[in-house]
């Protein structure tokens, strides 16, 4: 019975929505017959082209309750000066109130007005229209008669007379779009997403055991999830949070794209636009990308190392639970329209000025919590990887994904205190009035840029490096061979990790920083291309030497290679100071970092999701849907971001709420084609946005009726494929002798372990391998 009630509810809901969506049916009450009844009866049966009526005095859009003088007139037809009668009219307005000025017109009701006998001898009449007090679309219908004045009948002659009809529709003031206030849109969408999440949660629980679907069973189940210290469950929570905010950030991106789809658009005001791009950046980096990385790391690091859990499970749970509350703080103020409006970089001194919204304080506070969370995560993962590798697994036998997480966490961990201190400075400046960034007191806004980018540049590598790791795993497995040049891959990763700290100045080339530092960071930034290039060529060589199996995750990895390389190439424009000065703050920059962050990070995540989903859930994802997802997303993604390069070169600036196009060669305006490209980008953006629902659909459908996954569906070699799918809470691995327990790494990477290079020998001296230390103690 429950289901049928649900169905009835659903049908009812659909009906209500469709009724709301239907246009309100209105028709002309008086119509032509009304005109005829009012005296100008039967002036011809059909409308005539030769009569042209007009309504003057109407604005393009009305202001609320304003009074307008309308002049109704016509030309043409048989009407001649000197005729006894010349013509008449009938005006109907769907909204507002009509009233009359003099005796030549008469009022039928508030919506209809016509001429009187006294006004019979004119071709133009004046009436008054009072605009409605709320936002409406107003229709005006004017009928005009042009008469020849012959009196061949009791009611006045009608032969030879002509008439015509004019319709005018009118919108409300510009603010009428406030009816669709973007914040309300965002809020509603977030709430809808959240409700869907809750419904899904209830449904997942229902599916687990339909017979015990009640609160008594639900609350312990929920409490278990809320208080878990199991790395797998926390990893899942990270994923849920990450995907949720990926959706929220995506919605914000779509609202931004609606605003930019046509030049001079007013969907978002400047103020709203500032908040939207600020929160879009913050959400995507800190609330979507980082939790997803932590989700992967939580799930896979202990499994890949052959450990039972992370080193500090409770710290792990704490670093997750700091995130939702941080997110709450960051979003505080959005719903009242006072969210942070500083950009995700939060540049001082604007971020400490009183001109910013009060939400900026909360934004800083929320980020401080995220810093705390990241610090705890960093401690946890670094410790885990340092101490919990399986016996036999030296540093150089760690899977590349583990290496990438190690490097990412080292970078994050060592750089984020700078950001935290900077945020605390901003927070204190805003709350208790310290003077770190008070220019009048000698404060130096560049200090914030330094502290922020000291963290910020490693941070963007933090979000890309785990993708490198995932791609390495996926490509090696799909090529059915070990990755080419493992050792050089590790050194390249470590190199990226170290270089990340000395390149950050390239974000500040135009800020008036020390010229020496500018020069240094120019050189080091160019250096970044070297380790990254090594990685790209190693991946290509891996495929070259292997035989590639095209699965969904392989496709994403290949897509990653294309888009990331393109993004990397566009990135090489910026280290050159002169070029950077030219392209700075343009859409070229936007195109570049979306190419690496979406095409790199997000594609890597998708590859990882398709790759590890069977291991984590025990269900296979549908390959058909996966390929469909890849194709639509890859095409629409490129259509979305590639034209932005062009817009940037044309001079379209980022962080501006709108733009203008012109045919003239004027400074600060764009050529006419820019409008078309922007519309194209918006459409592609929506396709990209919705294409990702294929993944969500895929996840839902396959977890209900997908195939069960084998332990090792792809033929991967690392430890995570040795356990069952899904793995038990305290991971047990299937050992070579058939028993279950914690594994030991035997004969892995034998050839690599036996050929240390110069750097390798140096490293080996630092990091004594197990065999040697055992030999020493024996």
């Amino acid at each position: 019975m429950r289901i049928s009630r649900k169905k009835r509810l659903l049908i009812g809901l659909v009906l209500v929505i469709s009724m709301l969506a239907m246009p309100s049916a209105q028709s002309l009450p008086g119509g032509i017959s009304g005109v005829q009844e009012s005296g100008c009866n039967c002036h011809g049966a059909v409308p005539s082209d030769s009569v042209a009526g007009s309504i003057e005095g109407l604005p393009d859009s009305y202001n609320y309750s304003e009074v307008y003088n309308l002049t109704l007139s016509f030309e043409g037809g048989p009407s001649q000066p000197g005729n006894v009668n010349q013509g008449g009219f009938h005006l109907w307005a769907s909204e507002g109130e009509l009233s009359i000025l003099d005796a030549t017109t008469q009022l039928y009701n508030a919506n209809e007005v016509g001429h009187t006998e006294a006004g019979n001898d004119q071709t133009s009449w004046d009436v008054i229209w009072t605009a409605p007090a709320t936002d409406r679309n107003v229709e005006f219908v004017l009928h005009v008669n042009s008469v020849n004045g012959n009196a061949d009948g009791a009611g006045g002659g009608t032969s030879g007379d002509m008439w015509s009809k004019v319709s005018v529709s009118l919108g409300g003031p510009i603010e009428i779009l406030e009816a669709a206030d973007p914040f309300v849109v965002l809020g509603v969408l977030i709430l809808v997403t959240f409700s869907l999440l809750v419904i899904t949660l209830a449904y997942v629980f229902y599916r687990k055991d339909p017979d015990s679907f009640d609160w008594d069973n639900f609350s312990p189940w929920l409490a278990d999830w809320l208080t878990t210290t199991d790395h797998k469950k926390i990893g899942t929570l990270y994923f849920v949070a990450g995907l949720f905010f990926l959706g929220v950030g995506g919605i914000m991106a779509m609202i931004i794209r609606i605003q930019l789809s046509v030049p001079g658009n007013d969907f978002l005001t400047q103020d709203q636009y500032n908040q939207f791009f600020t929160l879009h950046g913050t959400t995507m980096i800190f609330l979507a990308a980082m939790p997803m990385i932590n989700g992967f790391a939580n799930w896979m690091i202990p499994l890949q190392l052959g450990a039972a859990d992370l080193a500090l499970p409770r710290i792990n749970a704490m670093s997750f639970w700091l995130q939702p509350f941080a997110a709450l703080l960051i979003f505080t103020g959005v719903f009242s329209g006072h969210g942070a409006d500083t950009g995700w970089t939060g540049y001082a001194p604007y971020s400490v000025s009183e001109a910013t919204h009060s939400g900026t304080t909360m934004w800083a506070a929320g980020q401080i919590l995220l810093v705390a969370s990241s610090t705890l995560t960093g401690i946890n993962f670094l410790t885990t990887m340092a101490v919990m590798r399986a016996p036999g697994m030296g540093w150089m036998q760690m899977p590349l994904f583990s290496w990438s997480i190690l490097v990412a966490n080292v970078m994050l961990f060592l750089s984020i205190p700078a950001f935290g201190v900077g945020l605390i400075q901003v927070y204190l400046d805003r709350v208790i009035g310290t003077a770190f960034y008070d220019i009048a007191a000698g404060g130096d806004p560049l200090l914030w840029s330094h502290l922020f980018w000291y963290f910020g540049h490693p941070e963007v590598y933090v979000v890309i490096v785990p993708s490198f790791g995932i791609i390495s795993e996926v490509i090696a497995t799909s090529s059915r061979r070990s990755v080419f040049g493992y050792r050089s891959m590790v050194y390249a990763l470590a190199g990226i990790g170290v270089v990340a700290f000395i390149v950050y100045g390239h974000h500040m080339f135009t800020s008036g920083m020390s010229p020496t530092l500018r020069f240094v960071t120019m050189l080091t930034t160019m250096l970044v291309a070297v380790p990254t290039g090594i990685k790209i060529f190693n991946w290509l060589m891996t495929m070259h030497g292997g035989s590639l199996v095209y699965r969904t995750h392989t496709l994403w990895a290949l897509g990653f290679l294309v888009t990331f390389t393109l993004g990397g190439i566009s990135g090489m424009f910026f280290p050159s100071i002169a070029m950077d000065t030219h392209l700075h703050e343009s859409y070229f920059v936007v195109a570049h970092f979306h190419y690496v962050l979406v095409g790199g990070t997000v594609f890597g995540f998708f590859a990882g999701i398709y790759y590890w989903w069977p291991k984590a859930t025990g269900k296979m994802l549908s390959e058909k849907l996966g390929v469909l997802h890849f194709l639509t997303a890859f095409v629409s993604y490129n259509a979305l971001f590639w034209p932005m390069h062009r817009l940037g070169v044309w001079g379209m600036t980022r962080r501006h709420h709108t733009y203008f196009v012109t045919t003239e060669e004027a400074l600060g305006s764009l050529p006419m084609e820019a409008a078309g490209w922007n519309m194209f980008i918006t459409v592609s953006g929506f396709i990209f946005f919705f294409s990702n629902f294929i993944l969500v659909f895929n996840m839902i459908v396959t977890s209900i009726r997908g195939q069960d996954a084998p332990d090792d569906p792809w033929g991967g070699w690392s430890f995570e494929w040795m356990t069952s799918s899904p793995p038990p809470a305290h991971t047990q691995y299937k050992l070579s002798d058939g028993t279950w327990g914690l594994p030991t790494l035997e004969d892995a990477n034998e050839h690599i372990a036996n050929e240390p290079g110069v750097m390798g020998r140096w490293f080996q001296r630092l990091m004594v391998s197990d065999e040697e230390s055992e030999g020493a103690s024996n």
Partner: protein
Amino acid sequence: MAHYKILGQDPYWMNFYGLMILTLIEVLAVGADLNGVAESLGTEEKVITLWILTIIAIPKFIMIAAIFMHLYGDEDSGILTLTALFPAFFILIMVLFVGLTHPNAASSLPDWCRPGNYGL
């Protein structure tokens, strides 16, 4: 735990005495009139003080880290010292890039970096 002795005495006590003495020297260095020394070296008193303070801070730092924090003399000391020294490079970078780049850089560009100086 310490498995060694300093001058035949308990290391913690010795370390403690040493730290006390060094701190006393610091306080005295600030209080004392070093103008004479400064002039003989052709610099200001402040600079002399700064040098003394920096030079004394280093052994104090090492003494606390090595003896109280057991970075010397334990079986795990070697690797933990490496761990502790790991951020050194990053600290150096931050001090150089953030701490010591001049805030007024834009208005105090060197001559060769200013417009109109291309021909030299």
